[in-house]
């Protein structure tokens, strides 16, 4: 293990007998100096984000979604699973902001509660696609040759399917349930990540700092982990935030078709489906959960779109 520059500096300072506060400050200055290009880049990015109102809107939607999910029990005005047959099919009013459904459950509370399911789906899909796709892509790009060819050809087969069709077929085969839906949505997604990371790895591999790391005797896996992958984070974030929107939309669609979440879960797609039979007279049951899906997916897409402009320098010049 080699000590970082900061460690060396701190040791140097101790030898020179500098008092502890100054030592910390010294380390801080060094850290700042060392990371100056990164910090400048970050500041520039923040400025770009602020200048783009649509990206700010996307970030705001995302933040609100997280807050709503965390504080759901405080925002909900009724138990989202409490069946009250005497209060069924009430139109929106001050008492029930979004009306009640066929079982007398408060639609507003259910929509609020659904944000938790939605966030969980988005996060787990992202985690699983990345856990499969990122290592495969990195290995593919870094090793090249037959391994690369094999991984990429298998990926091509997954990519040959329309993504939704593959997710639907898998969900149907796995037999419904929200966890199976997550698997069904995640699996068609891995080649996108593998391709992205492979492309990045291929170009990073040729950089001089990689050669330097190798020359310094770092083992290959360490070079890959410490030097190659951290440089893939930007494009990964763009892909991830676009994908979260897609994942949430697909989960809702699977719920709508009856192979996603199972009743009585307050999942938005399922709620739209449950309201479908009452659509023409009790429109609120389907409309409000749909609005929630739309706004959430829009938030992710706005965010991903803005991030792409910021992270992809070629787009910046426009």
């Amino acid at each position, binding site marked *: 293990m080699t000590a970082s520059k900061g460690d060396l500096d701190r040791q140097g300072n101790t030898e020179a007998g500098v008092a502890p506060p100054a030592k910390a400050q010294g380390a801080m200055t060094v850290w700042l100096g060392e990371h100056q290009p990164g910090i400048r880049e970050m500041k520039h990015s923040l400025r770009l984000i602020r200048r783009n109102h649509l990206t700010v809107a996307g970030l705001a939607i995302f933040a609100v979604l997280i807050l709503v999910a965390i504080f759901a029990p405080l925002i909900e005005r009724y138990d989202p699973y409490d069946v009250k047959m005497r209060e069924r099919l009430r139109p929106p009013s001050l008492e029930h902001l979004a009306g009640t459904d066929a079982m007398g459950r408060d639609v507003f509370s259910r929509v609020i509660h659904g944000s938790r399911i939605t966030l969980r789906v988005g996060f787990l899909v992202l985690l699983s696609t990345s856990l499969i796709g990122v290592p495969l892509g990195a290995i593919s790009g870094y090793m090249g040759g037959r391994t690369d060819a094999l991984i990429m050809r298998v990926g091509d087969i997954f990519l040959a399917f*329309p993504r939704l069709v593959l997710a*639907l077929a898998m969900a*149907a*085969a796995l037999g419904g349930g929200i966890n199976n839906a997550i698997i069904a949505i995640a699996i068609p997604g891995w080649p996108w990540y593998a391709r992205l990371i492979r492309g990045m790895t291929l170009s990073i591999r040729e950089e001089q700092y990689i050669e330097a790391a190798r020359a310094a005797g770092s083992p290959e896996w360490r070079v890959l982990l410490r030097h190659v992958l951290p440089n893939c984070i930007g494009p990964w974030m763009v892909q991830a935030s676009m994908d979260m929107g897609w994942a949430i939309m697909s989960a809702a669609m699977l719920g709508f078709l009856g192979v996603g979440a199972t009743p009585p879960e307050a999942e938005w797609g399922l709620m*739209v489906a449950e309201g479908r039979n009452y659509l023409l007279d009790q429109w609120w049951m389907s409309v409000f959960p749909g609005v929630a899906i*739309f706004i959430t997916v829009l938030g992710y897409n706005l965010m991903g779109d803005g991030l792409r402009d910021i992270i992809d320098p070629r787009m910046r010049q426009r």
Partner: protein
Amino acid sequence: MKLYQFIAQRLLLLIPVLFGISLLTFTISHLVPADPARLLAGPEAKADAVEAIRKKWGFDRPVYERYLLYMAGVLRGDLGISISTRHPVSQDLRERIPATAELGLAALLIMVLLGVPLGVTAAVKKDAALDHGCRLGALAGVSMPAFWLALLFQLFFFKSLGWFPAGGRLDQSLEPPTHITGMYVLDSLLTGNMTTLANAWWHLAMPATVLSLAGLASVTRMGRASMLEVLTKDYINAARAKGLPERAVIYRHALKNALIPVVTVVSMWLGGILGGSFVVELVFYWPGVGYYGTSGILTADYTAIMGVSLLLTVTYVVANLLADIAYMFIDPRIRYA
């Protein structure tokens, strides 16, 4: 490279992909925990009847043999028997393909015929407000869940305004036109049956619009972005400098070059149309492949699901191949590269 060489090469590359698709589809549909022989025999069948069916359809064989049997069938056009309709899946699909083809083509036409001009206009009249509007509109279109939009359309255009029917392909009182292609719009046009033609259009309008919307938004945006880029090129300056009228510059010089990325987006969105057909056909009672697939999903009819995914995926793969060939027609630089 010659055109036919290119096509031959692409067709060869297609073989391993198609093989992989069939393998993946087969694997997926065998994840189904239910016993297919029992499903096929029905709930009341005796044990020996189930055994007989198991033998007849080869469910007792090892998995790889079943795959080979299935593939031998697929190559003969036999996709197995649907558990819910009890017809051969290939026959069920053949009956339903025209409806989905009609809907999908209509959606594709809306996407291209509306999206490209919109994108070009937005690029030519470049200003900040339009810029943001275009971006927001495109992202909103992509973010709208198709099943929900379909319900909103029904609520608004059927219930509130009464402009369009809630679903189906034709009014109950009308006979379907003579079967030529199976697409009602085309058939009624070919037989000169104007009442049916109008009625078929009227039924097609809502589902096709819903199905096309997300793609339309993307095409508009891509068309605009790519047009903007092309308009900064030197050859556009040259065309303007030699005194061509602006219309000629835009339509003859810029548009053709701007179309290349648009073709990619269109062929990608075909996947969206095929996937979207499941929910849109369900909501609008459109008796096509997607509706069949949805019923298959609900009844755990794995032969039907396998047949539908195979059909849709092969369609998608072939369409992407056609898009690649289309590039060569649009862009001579690719042809001679």
